[in-house]
């Protein structure tokens, strides 16, 4: 079994569109949306949810106002500015609470308690291209790294059960903890880059990160014709880093149209040049 993760650093480079396209070319693959903050893969693949799970992202503090003596010890000890006193009453600003539970431990009247924050869900679904594991974080929730780990673990279990040959991960943007969780343990990272200065800048930081994990790297240049000069610059960079560039895909409104029609580009325009490039990419990375 081979695990492939598609990453981009910067958002909006076409990572999900390309992941979806790969999903429709790949035979016998399990799909996994690692972008738990803003999961979008399901919009193209229209999954039927078979299994729903709740996920705890840590603790949040609460005050029992009837017990609270309003002594303010918690305010003095909270380093996240998550506790305030209005009209003499202690209040927790939930979205600032980091879940360290220090206030709960030091409260002299035991008026503070913590509840697990369970505003997150993850799902196992059926799609027309195979099983898919995806998640939804509650807005403002922390800990997406852990959720990514959970989602990936389930995808691996399913891949084992079904003896799938591949897991295709749609990775999260950025280089933070969720990106790290998405990279670790994967066999191959495919970078989707757009030829913009920010695209190049972000991809350099991402390459630095992936390199530290010692994982094979491949790249696809998306919308390469929006700026051919920057595209050249990126090609040169990839060359110097010894990262094979598998395809240069032109900017094409059909990519968005296919999304609007809830189809992958392969399904929408099976005979197009883009479809052929993506098939070629898959032939190489599946090796």
């Amino acid at each position: 079994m081979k695990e492939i993760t598609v990453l981009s650093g910067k958002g909006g480079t076409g990572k999900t569109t390309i992941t979806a396209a790969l999903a429709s070319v790949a035979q016998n693959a399990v799909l996994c949306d690692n972008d738990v903050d803003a999961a979008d893969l399901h919009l193209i693949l229209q999954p039927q949810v078979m299994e729903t799970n709740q996920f705890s992202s840590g603790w949040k503090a609460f005050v029992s106002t009837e017990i609270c003596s309003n002594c303010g010890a918690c305010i003095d000890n909270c380093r996240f500015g998550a506790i305030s006193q209005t009209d003499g009453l202690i209040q927790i600003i939930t979205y600032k609470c980091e879940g360290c539970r220090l206030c709960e431990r030091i409260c002299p009247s035991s008026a503070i308690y913590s509840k697990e924050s369970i505003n997150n869900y993850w799902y196992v679904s059926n799609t027309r291209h195979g099983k898919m594991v995806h998640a939804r974080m509650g807005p403002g929730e922390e800990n997406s790294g852990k959720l990514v780990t959970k989602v990936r673990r389930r995808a691996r279990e399913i891949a084992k059960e079904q003896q799938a040959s591949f897991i295709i991960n749609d990775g999260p943007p950025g280089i933070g903890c969720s990106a790290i969780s998405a990279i670790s343990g994967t066999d191959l990272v495919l970078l989707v880059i757009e030829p913009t200065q920010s695209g190049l800048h972000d991809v350099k930081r991402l390459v630095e990160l992936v390199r530290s994990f010692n994982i094979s790297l491949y790249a696809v240049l998306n919308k390469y014709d929006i700026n051919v000069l920057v595209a050249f610059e990126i090609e040169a960079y990839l060359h110097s880093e010894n990262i094979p560039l598998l395809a240069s895909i032109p900017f094409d409104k059909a990519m968005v149209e296919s999304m609007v029609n809830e189809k992958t580009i392969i399904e929408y325009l099976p005979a197009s040049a883009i479809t052929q490039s993506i098939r070629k990419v898959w032939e190489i990375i599946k090796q």
Partner: protein
Amino acid sequence: MSKTVITSSGNTLTSKFDKRFGRAEFFCLLDEATGQTSFIANEFKDANHGAGTKAAEFMVEQQVNKIISGDFGPKAKELLEKFDVQMVILQEELTIQAIVDRISKK
């Protein structure tokens, strides 16, 4: 006397080898001298943070000499290296029994 740990996805010898270290389901303890095995559930597998570090801490406290797993995180590596615990990485899909057999076959 050599105490070996193999990360396992279940608590029997027929269970699959678990390639995760900190988030492995079980740890299989193997006494290489006698060939005896026992299984311990990994209490940190669902920890929100630092499962690898906690597992490494546990190994050192249990005076484990050798750990067989699929990968070790950088922090776990550092700790295990410091306390002279041998780390072994296997990438094959194997059962615990198969690994035990391989070690026992001198």
